[in-house]
C-alpha cells in the first residue's frame, strides 16, 4: 500500500503534458469567426456550430417549437424530401447532429476530406433551406408527444421537471424544452418557421473546427454555410429569479426506489469565486468514488448506487444540484447524510490533503478531455460561448492550482446553505412528507 502512494506522489511532480493543441482564430472573408485546430493525420473534419439562446427563445405559448424545429432540420431541404436528404447524407457518409439545450442550439457535423465539398453543400441546404413539410412536422411531432408521455412516467424526468418548475417558475428554465402534449399539439408550421428564424442568426454564432482542413478552406466554408443566415435573431431571455426555499417536495409515484434531486442557488460562471466553487464541488460530490457524498452515502452505508453533485451555471440563472436514488425505506436516511455533509463542508471547509487531491485530479484530467476531433471542436465552441480567451486551455490548470483552502472556506460559507437545500423526491419514500 505505502509503495503505491509513493509512486503516485513521485509521478505527480512530472507535469502532465497537454496535447499540443495549436488553436488558431480564423476570420472568413465575410467576417465570420471560428477557432480552428488543424489535425491532418485522419482525413476528416469535425465542425461544431453553436447559436446562443437555444430553447429558452421559445415564444410565449409556443413551448416546444424550437425543439420541434431542431428535429426537423434533417427532414428535408431544398428539392430533397426527408428520404432524399437522408439518402444523400448516407451516400456521403457524413453526419450532421442537431441539438438544442436551454442556452444553445448546436450543429455537430463530421465529413470526409474526399467529399467535403458535397457534404458541406448538403449541410448548407439543411441550414439555409429547410422545408418543414407538413408530413414531417406531423411525424416528428408524434415522436415528441410519445417521448413526453414516456417522460411523464419516468421518475428521473418527473424529478427534473418538478425541480425546474419550483426553481424558476414561469421563466423558460422552469419548463421542459420538449413542451407539453398540449403546447406541442397546437404548434403550426408558422410556429416552426418562426422558431427557425429566432434561433439561427449570425449575431449569436460560435464555431469550432478540428481536423483535416486549412484556415483558408475553413474560411470559405464558413461564408458558404452561414453567410446567408439572417443577421439578427430573437432577443435573449430575461435573467431568471430563483424562487425555491429549503424543504422537501414529495411527488408520489409507484416505484420501489425513490429518486431525489436536491440543491439550491449556485454561482455564475464569471464569478471571481467560480474556480474555488468548482474545486470545492469536486471534493463534495463530483469526484467519483473519492467524493464526500459518494464515500458517506454509498461506500460507508450502501444507501445508493451512485450520488453526485454539480454546478449548473446557465446563462441567465445558476444552480447547485445533486441527485441520487435510494430504496423507499432508506431514502430518508440518505437525505439526512447529504444534509450533514452540506453543513459539515459549510462549517469546516476542506483539508489541505483533500484540496491537493482534487487539484491533482482536475489538472491531470483536463488534457484527457481533448480526446478526438469532435470533442475538441465542441470545447472550442464552448470556450467562445463562455467568453474565454483563446489561450484558456494553457492557463486553466494554473487557475485550479491557485485555489487555496481559505478560498474554499470563503466560497463554502457563501455557497453552501444547508437550510436552503430543497429535495424533490419522486417515489413512495417512507418517513418523508412535503414541507409547506
Amino acid at each position, binding site marked *: *500500500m505505502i*509503495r*503505491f*502512494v509513493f*509512486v*503516485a506522489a513521485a*509521478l*505527480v511532480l512530472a507535469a*502532465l*503534458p497537454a*496535447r499540443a493543441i495549436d488553436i488558431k482564430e480564423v476570420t472568413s472573408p465575410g467576417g465570420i469567426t471560428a477557432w480552428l485546430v488543424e489535425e491532418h493525420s*485522419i*482525413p*476528416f473534419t469535425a465542425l461544431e456550430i453553436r447559436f446562443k439562446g437555444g430553447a429558452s427563445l421559445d415564444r410565449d405559448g409556443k413551448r416546444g417549437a424550437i425543439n420541434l424545429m431542431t*428535429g426537423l432540420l*434533417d*427532414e428535408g431541404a431544398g428539392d430533397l424530401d*426527408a428520404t432524399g436528404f*437522408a*439518402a444523400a447524407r*448516407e*451516400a456521403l*457518409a457524413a453526419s450532421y447532429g442537431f441539438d438544442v439545450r436551454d442556452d444553445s442550439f448546436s450543429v455537430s457535423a463530421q465529413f*470526409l476530406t474526399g467529399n467535403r465539398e458535397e457534404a458541406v453543400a448538403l449541410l448548407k441546404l439543411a441550414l439555409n433551406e429547410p422545408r418543414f413539410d407538413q408530413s414531417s412536422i406531423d*411525424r*416528428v411531432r*408524434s*415522436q415528441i408527444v*410519445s*417521448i413526453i*408521455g*414516456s417522460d*411523464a*412516467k419516468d421518475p428521473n424526468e418527473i424529478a427534473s421537471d418538478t425541480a425546474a418548475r419550483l426553481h424558476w417558475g414561469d421563466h423558460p428554465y422552469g419548463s421542459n424544452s420538449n413542451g407539453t402534449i398540449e403546447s406541442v399539439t397546437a404548434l403550426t408550421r408558422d410556429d416552426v418557421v418562426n422558431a427557425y428564424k429566432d434561433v439561427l442568426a449570425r449575431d449569436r454564432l460560435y464555431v469550432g473546427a478540428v481536423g483535416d482542413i486549412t484556415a483558408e478552406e475553413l474560411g470559405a466554408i464558413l461564408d458558404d454555410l452561414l453567410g446567408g443566415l439572417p443577421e439578427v435573431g430573437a432577443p435573449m431571455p430575461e435573467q431568471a429569479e430563483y424562487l425555491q426555499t429549503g424543504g422537501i417536495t414529495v411527488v408520489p409515484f*409507484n416505484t*420501489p*426506489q425513490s*429518486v431525489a434531486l436536491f440543491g439550491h442557488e449556485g454561482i455564475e460562471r464569471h464569478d471571481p469565486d467560480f474556480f474555488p466553487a468548482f474545486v470545492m464541488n469536486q471534493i463534495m460530490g463530483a469526484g*467519483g*468514488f*473519492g467524493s464526500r457524498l459518494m464515500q458517506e452515502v*454509498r*461506500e460507508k*452505508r*450502501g*444507501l445508493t*448506487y*451512485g450520488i453526485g453533485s454539480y454546478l449548473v451555471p446557465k446563462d441567465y440563472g445558476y444552480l447547485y444540484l445533486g441527485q441520487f*436514488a435510494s*430504496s423507499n425505506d432508506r431514502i430518508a436516511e440518505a437525505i439526512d447524510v447529504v444534509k450533514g455533509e452540506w453543513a459539515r463542508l459549510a462549517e469546516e471547509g476542506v483539508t489541505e490533503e483533500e484540496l491537493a*487531491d482534487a487539484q491533482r*485530479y*482536475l*489538472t*491531470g*484530467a483536463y*488534457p*484527457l478531455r481533448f*480526446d478526438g476531433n*469532435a470533442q475538441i471542436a465542441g470545447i472550442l465552441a464552448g470556450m467562445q460561448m463562455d467568453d474565454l480567451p483563446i489561450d484558456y486551455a494553457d492557463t486553466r490548470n494554473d487557475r485550479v492550482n491557485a485555489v487555496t483552502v481559505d478560498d474554499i472556506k470563503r466560497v463554502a460559507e457563501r455557497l453552501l446553505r444547508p437550510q436552503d437545500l430543497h429535495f424533490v423526491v419522486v417515489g413512495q419514500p417512507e418517513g418523508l412528507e412535503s414541507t409547506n
Partner: protein
Amino acid sequence: MLSRFLTTFAMLLALPAAAAENITTFTLDNGLEAVVIEDHRAPVVVHMLWYKVGAADEPPGASGVAHFLEHLMFKGTDKLEAGEFSDVVQANGGTDNAFTSQDYTGYFQRVAADRLGLMMEMEANRMRNLRLTETDIVTERDVILEERAQRTDSDPGALFGEQRSAAQFMSHPYGIPIIGWRHEMEQLDMEDVMSFYREFYAPNAAVLVVAGDVDPAEVQALAEQHYGPLEPTPGLEARERPQEPPQLVERRLVFEDERASQPYVVRTYLAPERDSGDQETAAALALLADVLGGSSATSVMGQALELENPKAVYTSAFYRGLNYDDTTFGLVIVPTPDVSLQEAEDAMDAVVAQFIEDGVDAEQLERIKAQIHASEVYAQDDVGGLARRYGTALTSGLTVEDVKAWPDILQAVTEEDIIAAAKMIFDRDKAVTGWFRKPVETVEVTQ
C-alpha cells in the same frame, strides 16, 4: 431523427477496425494475451484488462456474482487499501471504471501515457491478491441491490427485457440477467465471490488491451514485469455453457405495467453470432438489420411503416454479432396512438414478407457500404473505441485476424446473401414476441 428510442433498442452495425498496421499482439508464458493499438496524437493511454468470464459463467443459483465481484475489485488487496486503486488513478489525473457483460468482465483506466506501468502494477496486483472483509460484502451487496432497483426495478422497459430474455433462453444462462435475480443477489456471500474470483481471475483467462501513445516493445516489457509473474489457473479450458434445445414453437409475452406510457412490440429470433473464421452469416445478418431497420428515413421498415403509410413513430431492426454463444436478431415497432399492438405487429410482418419478395435495393446497400467504409476513417479518431472492439472480440471467441477481416467480409455481402439470411432467420417458430403496454383496464379508462 429523434434518438431517444435508439438508446433502448438500436445495436448499430458493429464498426470495423482501423488500419491494421497500428495493431501489435503478444502472449505471455502464463497465457495472458495482449493487444497494443498505437495512437500517438496525444500523450494518453487506455489500459484495459478483460477477463474471459461473465454473468453467463456463474454457477447456478448465484446470479449476479460476476457483477458483484466487479464492484468488490475496488476494495482492498494485500497491498492496496479499499478504494485506494481509484484514489491513485485519480491522483494521477486519470479515470477508471469497470463493466460486466454476459461474456466478459473488464477493467480500464485512462491516464497520461507515462503512468502505464503504475496502472499495470495495480491491476496485476488485484488479479490474484484481493482481500475482502465481511463488511465489504454486506455494504457492497446493498449497493448492487440499489443498482438493480435503479436500473431494472424502476424501469418497466428493463423488466420487460429481462422477461423476454428469460423466455428466449430456456437452457442457456443468457436467460438470466447480468445484475442477477434479486432473491439470489440477496444471498451472495464471501464464498460465492471468492471461489468465482480464484478460478477465473487468472492470466490465462485475461486479455490485456493497451491503446494510445505507447511503444509496443515497452508495453510488452512492462507486461512481462507486472503480469508475467502471475500464476495461471490450472486446467482452465474454453467455456462450455448449456446450449438451447431446438425451439419448436413461438413464445409470446404480454408485459403490463402501470408505468408504461408508450406501448410497443419487440420480436427477437435466435441467431448465430460471429464465429471465428466463419463470419459470413453474421455479416449478412448485420447488413440485413441495417437494410431493414437501420435508419428511419431510408430503411425498409422506416419507409413503409413511418413514412409512406404511417403506423409507427419508431421502428428498428437490431443484431448483436459480438457474442460468445448464439445471439438474437430483433425487430421493434412503436405504433402511433391509433394503431393497436396487433395491427402494428401484423404490419411489421407484412413489410418483412414483402421485403423478402422484393429483394434488396441496390442503391441502399451501396450507401450502407459507403458508410461502413467511412466508419473505418472515423474510428481512428476514437482509440478507446478501438480498444473496446478488440477486447470484446477477444473475449467473445474471436481473434485479432477475425476483427481485421470483418470490414472486408461486410463489403463482400451481396443482395442475395441478405435475402438468404432473412429467409433463414425469420422463422416464427424460433421467435419470442413481446407486447409492452399499460394494464388493459387503464388503457380502456384513458381512451
